[in-house]
């Protein structure tokens, strides 16, 4: 059936709310308004204000309340409108959700799902364009996933809700309108494995989330240059599925990591480090990174686009890795 990323997410929410009475959704404008990105449109009427719960603008309080509700036996889905606002709840996520199980000697696990939009590209300027999923991927105790496809938008939520630990789900805001075909029987998917989205032999392009499509575009352009690129969608940012991406790199012997975050301290750096640690002797060239320019993301379209990874940049980095120079 033809659908969108947004609709696939909505179906996943509807399924979760219908199947498990402990599940509820809360966040800013998830109810009557229908969600800032319209993911939950219609669910308020269908499930009522107790299960699709509008919150005040108080990220720390409602994320913390999600932690408490999870401890109390519910299965909360907390929508933080965007990763930018999650910084107001970072204390709750890092100091409590992530630490509680270990700190309590294994007594209190937090089965919480936190969803948020991430990424730039819509001319929203410096305070609404962050890609900070790697900050959370740094923290033991959290699981961090990034659905990039319709299948993952449809299937990751239910699996995340079965997880006994906190799961952070990053949805690139440019993907909500993504259209495509989804199998009628599409359902839950694993959160563990990276996926090869395009097979190739000359270079591995590693990416996740919104960059998957720029990277696939780059791979198509590389093909026209006579370079066969393999595209790996990491899907899980913590833990990283090292086995899958290292197998790809060992096969192609070359790697380019694409990351919308700034280069310094980025997850791309971590992925590259793992490649060097795990596949150094299999490499034919130093791996490369394509990240955002280290500047607060500007409003003006040309400047914003110049700041972000683009297919041209990915192609250039891949050609350099493949051909040297």
């Amino acid at each position: 059936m033809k659908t969108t990323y947004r609709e696939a997410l909505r179906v996943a929410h509807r399924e979760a709310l219908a199947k498990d009475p402990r599940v509820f959704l809360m966040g800013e404008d998830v109810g009557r308004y229908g969600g800032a990105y319209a993911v939950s449109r219609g669910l308020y009427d269908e499930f009522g204000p107790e299960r699709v719960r509008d919150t005040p603008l108080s990220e720390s309080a409602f994320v913390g309340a999600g932690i408490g509700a999870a401890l109390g036996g519910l299965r909360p889905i907390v929508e933080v409108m965007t990763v930018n606002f999650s910084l107001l709840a970072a204390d709750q996520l890092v100091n409590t959700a992530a630490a509680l199980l270990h700190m309590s000697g294994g007594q209190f696990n937090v089965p919480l799902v936190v969803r948020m939009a991430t990424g730039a590209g819509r001319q929203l300027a410096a305070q609404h364009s962050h890609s900070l999923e790697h900050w959370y991927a740094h923290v033991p105790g959290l699981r961090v996933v990034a659905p990039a496809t319709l299948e993952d938008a449809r299937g990751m939520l239910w699996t995340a809700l079965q997880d006994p630990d906190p799961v952070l789900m990053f949805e690139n805001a440019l993907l909500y309108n993504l259209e495509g075909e989804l199998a009628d029987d599409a359902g839950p998917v694993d959160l563990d494995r990276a996926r090869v989205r395009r097979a190739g032999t000359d270079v591995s392009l590693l990416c996740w989330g919104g960059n998957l499509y720029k990277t696939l575009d780059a791979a198509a352009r590389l093909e026209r240059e006579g370079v066969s690129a393999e595209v790996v969608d990491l899907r899980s940012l913590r833990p990283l599925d090292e086995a899958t991406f290292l197998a790809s790199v060992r096969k192609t012997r070359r790697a380019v990591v694409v990351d919308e975050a700034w280069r310094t301290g980025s997850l791309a750096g971590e992925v590259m480090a793992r490649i060097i640690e795990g596949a150094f002797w299999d490499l034919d060239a130093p791996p490369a990174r394509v990240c955002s320019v280290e500047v607060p993301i500007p409003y003006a379209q040309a400047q914003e686009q110049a700041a972000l990874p683009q297919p041209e940049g990915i192609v250039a980095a891949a050609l350099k890795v493949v051909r040297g120079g």
Partner: protein
Amino acid sequence: MTPEVAHACFTQLTRIRRFEEACAQCYAEGRIRGFLHLSIGEEAIAVGAMRALTPADAVVATYREHGHALARGLSMRSVMAEMFGKKAGCARGRGGSMHLFDAATRFYGGNAIVAGHLPLAVGLALADHRLARDVVTACFFGEGAVAEGEFHEALNLAALWRLPVLFLCENNRYAMGTALERSEAETDLTKKAASYRVPAQQVDGMNVEAVADAVAEAAGHARAGRGPWFLELLTYRFRAHSMFDAELYRSKEEVKAWTARCPVATFRERAKAAGALTDDDVAKVEAAVRAEVADAIAFADAAEVEPVAELTWAVTRREVAP
């Protein structure tokens, strides 16, 4: 006051006092490390509040929570073992003084980010409300937390959703060394709670019976589905903020004036005057508590530390090791 109540309260007050005095001693000897925040002077709050709660209620506390844990029913052995960093501790020695936890008594810490645990308490109450459980969540915090955004966000959320949370503010007048009047333009904390339509009152936090009565009333209100309640419990920390504190911020006269209102001694005298406690009872309680503390220290001393091989156990429930 009945002899039973007098005995129970005096026993708990004495347990906390003697336990913490012993902790200070063990700290001086290097057997307890890290931060150690004593509640000496503030024991009436933990003891009074726990008397008003049921075993099914939830408790969320701060890093100055030894008294709350003991009054809630954690064994002194498990708390002392935690202070000693031993696996037999109530958090396997991973939390120490600031992070006591116990699932069996619904004791959710031991939280050491000021005000960070207030939202968690609201969430626990949300779950109880949604699952139609007849329980309340008691959330303790110091007056310093009132300056944090979480205080305001959490009170608003609990009031908006009419959740059964008891916000129990232990006002010991100093956030570390900063006096309330040096950090708040409005020092009447009940006004802040009332502005969120949360019923609020001040209580003598040096008086066990006053605390127990006020918390019982608040809990009754919350259990009846009428939402949260805020109590400002006026108290005083007799010791340093932690173990390193030159106490430059308060006068000896002030400390002396408050020490004269010691919640343990004043309770003992009130109970004796009411004929509910005898000198013989006092001596027996003191002896029993002395023995319990000595036993807890011996237990903690002898207990094993968690093996390093278990360092990464339970980082997540899903995977034992990363």
